[in-house]
């Protein structure tokens, strides 16, 4: 096989990458031995590959590594914060759901108290008739001296009084209050 200069130039890159068939390779080598121009092109191309392939050609701007590392660390920290934030949000959601559930169960038992300071009673006989005043917060045994607003009294079952959020009087119904 004989090759001319143009064929050598066309294959010079493949030749250097050892991507040519053995007979073509031999033909190129034979041509180059007698052709100074092609030998110059081959040597020059080999130099180009060797020089650019050197690690020293992979230059980065001053501070590049530091900035990249910081970016990566910030991203990781951001994800952590994001994850923590998600956890906090999730915990808050659970808490809110639980609170709603509790308050719903209170409503269902009609235990929303009229006074935030009052303590609910325990074991008050549901059928016991008690006295409440419309604007008051507690229910009383009939005749209790601590009944306020006597002008607007109602007598209802203890069951009903509790449903409406009244709590036992700490004087006359003390025995039904939780310790």
């Amino acid at each position, binding site marked *: 096989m004989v090759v001319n200069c143009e064929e050598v130039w066309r294959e010079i890159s493949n030749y250097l990458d050892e991507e040519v068939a053995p007979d073509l390779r031999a033909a190129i080598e034979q041509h180059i031995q007698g052709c100074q121009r092609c030998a110059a092109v081959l040597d020059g191309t080999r130099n*180009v590959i060797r020089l650019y392939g050197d690690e*020293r050609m992979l230059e980065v701007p001053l501070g590049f590594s530091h900035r990249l590392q910081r970016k990566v660390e910030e991203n990781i920290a951001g994800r952590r914060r994001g994850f923590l934030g998600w956890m906090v949000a999730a915990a808050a959601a659970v808490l809110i759901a639980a609170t709603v559930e509790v308050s719903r169960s209170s409503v269902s038992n009609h235990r929303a108290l009229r006074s935030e300071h009052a303590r609910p009673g325990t074991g008050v006989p549901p059928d016991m008739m008690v006295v409440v005043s419309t604007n008051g917060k507690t229910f009383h045994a009939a005749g209790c001296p601590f009944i306020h607003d006597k002008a607007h009294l109602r007598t209802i079952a203890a069951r009903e009084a509790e449903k409406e959020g009244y709590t036992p009087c700490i004087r006359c119904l003390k025995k039904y209050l939780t310790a």
Partner: protein
Amino acid sequence: MPGEVTSLKTPAEQFNEGALIRRVRDGERELFYELIRPYERRVYAAALAIVRNQADAEDVAQEAVLKALKHIGQFRGEAKFSTWLIQITVNEAHMRRRREHVGVMQPMLDHQDEEGNYTPRDFADWREVPSETLERKEVREKLAEALASLGEKYREVFVLRDMEHLSIEDTAKTLGISTASVKTRLLRARLMLRDLLAPGLGGSWSTKLSFAKGTKPW
């Protein structure tokens, strides 16, 4: 394949890299920078081959690395980690180029006919240029300038193949072109660079003497 640097890592380093990848995937994200550090310069070079502007290349490199961190769980080890990272970088750089419509500023060399034969212009005889020449900043700058003057399609193939040491197949896969196109573009890139650099590298560059004051190295 002879003449091709298939891996710059020793088997022990590769093993360590595999272990590091697993640990990062299992949640030790703080080890990620250690994993990519050996390749950060290659990531930057790949980005610069496509966007050409240093600031943009750094942005692209950072975005690519963060993207790799985000998707590390998808890395299955079918390709080398370095190739996977370079592929992400090239995609990121191409996206940036498309966004910014920089294509209108393509240099003339990009429009050269890829199929036609390239005829070398300079036949000066080169001596072997010693690698120590690269210690000189002005030589590295001239090489970088010559590379930047190539059209994008030649530059990116050359950088991936001859600077990043990707195989022809991986270069083709990364750029989404055929292996035949890789070979054609690589041939042109190498010959064009040779022509651009021959006046300097074929002559006074290969000596260790500094250039006379006021004269160009070309």
